[in-house]
């Protein structure tokens, strides 16, 4: 089922106005479609324009030309108040909310829906309860923000955006500075919110590993190739990720979903191994020590490695055969040559 995008734009030019008539265009002719019920990750190197794109989509920065459409309505035609009910943001900005409780911060998300004095109705309080529950922080609702870990604080800001009841949530590097457990938690949480609450969630991140696992769609942004979008697996298998960072020293390995340094080697060793995990880490070790790996047993290589188990490595050099009991011993053999 393909729904109409909640945010769309055609031939969008983004960038800055630099005093006078000067324009500094960061990207031009971007075509954008963000869908409800999906988690979309925006990937790109530092300085690729991720934050500029997010700011433009959230209406915090005007596009240089072209219109961002929110459910078909141009962003420029949406009132400040209406916009605050359409797009919620999670930023990396410095805040001064250490003296507020978790609940008070989440309740700030109700501001677009409350009256002049910001009094919370029972419906508002129910929405705050739901948002706290969705982010698993109900038990922390009376704690001060200052007492939370970075990961917990991020969950509170996500709960705030949820309480805002916006169909669109934009997040600028929500997993930066978090440890691996919190990163996975936050990404899983966002994916669950996108699916269960049918929100369109777009986040920028450097955490490519998690993005490939949990993101429904990828937006790749680079200075050279502009914006490439698609379902995560289409993007991975198309090889587009190799062009994300224009750097000859790294390449993307679609099998393991990760970037690796490009191997420079002039020597090759033949590897014979049935187990995929063992094979992967054997190649890893060979590459790091400046060797390439070959798999054709009949090739004219002088060394053949038979990897039986992690403590049973048979080193065959012409007619000389040695049994090694660890990768430590293998490293020593390689360095002796």
């Amino acid at each position: 089922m393909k729904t109409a995008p909640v945010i769309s734009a055609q031939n969008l030019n983004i960038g800055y106005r630099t005093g006078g008539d000067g324009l500094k265009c960061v990207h031009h002719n971007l075509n954008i479609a963000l869908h409800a019920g999906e988690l979309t990750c925006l990937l790109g190197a530092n300085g690729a324009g991720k934050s500029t794109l997010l700011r433009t989509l959230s209406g915090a920065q005007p596009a240089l030309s072209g219109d961002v459409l929110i459910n078909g309505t141009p962003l420029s035609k949406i009132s400040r108040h209406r916009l605050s009910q359409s797009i919620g943001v999670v930023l990396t900005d410095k805040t001064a909310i250490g003296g507020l409780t978790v609940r008070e911060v989440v309740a700030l998300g109700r501001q677009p829906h409350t009256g002049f004095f910001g009094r919370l109705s029972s419906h508002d309080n129910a929405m705050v309860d739901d948002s706290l529950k969705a982010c698993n922080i109900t038990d922390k609702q009376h704690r001060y923000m200052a007492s939370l870990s970075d990961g917990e604080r991020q969950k509170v800001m996500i709960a705030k955006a949820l309480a805002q009841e916006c169909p669109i949530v934009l997040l600028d590097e929500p997993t930066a500075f978090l440890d691996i457990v919190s990163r996975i938690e936050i990404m899983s949480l966002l994916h669950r919110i996108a699916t269960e609450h049918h929100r369109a969630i777009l986040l920028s991140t450097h955490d490519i590993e998690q993005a490939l696992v949990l993101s429904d769609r990828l937006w790749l942004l680079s200075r050279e190739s502009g914006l490439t979008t698609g379902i995560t697996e289409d993007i991975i298998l198309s090889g587009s990720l190799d062009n994300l960072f224009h750097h000859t020293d790294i390449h993307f390995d679609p099998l393991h979903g990760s970037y690796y340094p490009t191997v420079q080697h002039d020597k090759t060793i033949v590897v014979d191994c049935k187990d995929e995990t063992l094979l992967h880490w054997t190649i890893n070790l060979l590459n790091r020590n400046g060797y390439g790996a070959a798999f054709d047993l009949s090739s004219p290589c002088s060394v053949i490695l038979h990897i039986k188990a992690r403590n049973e490595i048979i080193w065959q050099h012409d007619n000389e055969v040695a049994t090694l009991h660890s990768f430590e011993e293998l490293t020593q053999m390689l360095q002796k040559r």
Partner: protein
Amino acid sequence: MSRNLHISYSTRLIITLVVLSAILWVCNLFIGSVSIPAKEVINVLTGQPCERESWRYIIIESRIPQAITALLAGCSLAVAGLLLQTTFNNPLAGPSILGIDTGASLGVAIVMLAGGTLLTSSPISGFIATIVGAFVGAASVLAIILFFSTFVRNNLMLLIIGMMVGYLTSSIISLLNFFASANQVHAYTMWGMGNLGGVSLQQLPWYATASVCGLLIALLLSKPLNAMLLGTRYAENLGVNISATRNMLLLATGLLTATTTAFCGPVTFIGLSVPHIARLLLRSSNHNTLLPVTMLCGAVVLLLCNMLSVIPGNNGIIPINAVTPLIGAPVIIYVIVNQKKIHYFNG
């Protein structure tokens, strides 16, 4: 359950502060540089005949307006400080540190020294000129600092810019002093020491109206102020009109600082320290409760300072600016030393 507890705690705190400020206000009527027996004070207040007519005059014409002034000035300066701290996202901001009361002083100096009119002895027109001068001066400095804050993101740098603007303003005041007559300089210097007794019973309604207006504007801004705690970009996303809110804050802070400075001289440390006392007592940065608590704490602190300033008895009055740092400075040092343990510092 604990939500109800929280509400009742802040309500209890507010009631305590109201009672405390009422008691201190009454105490201010009984204590002054001229010693008047308590029985006679009660006689005057209840409209009974008084032993000496001069005592009645002192209480009606001096002590009552001074106690009301101390109450209003305490509220005004404390709230001005809180508004500045939230606007600049900086707990060490305050009207004195950012040079805003120096701006008001410059406005007053221009009126008093260059214009040749004196606040205490002038007719009402000169007196209004002084207030307008103070407001224009305070608002100008505040506008300059707001302008710098749009591109100086570092809070410490912004405070230093505020101090520099303050120094520049002071040097203009010194120049004005240099060219003024001895009498004018004397009057200006006396005013600069801070004096809560400078507002006469006739001037009081003017002062009260201006400061109550400023306080009301501040109270109406508590919703956007809470959003501003998240920073301007978050606040904008919550639908807050940042420029309109900043203009209202400029108006309220300017009004509160300028009127108080015009009437009482530049009273230091209240704006900087009282919001901290309030946050520490309230244990919250939520402006819905923090604004009233800050207001009441300001009243309590300045009424207390006013009482301390008359301790020498018949030997005269200690300038209020010699007393306020005694309470204010230790609070700021305490807050800075303990900032790692104080929740609102770790935002």
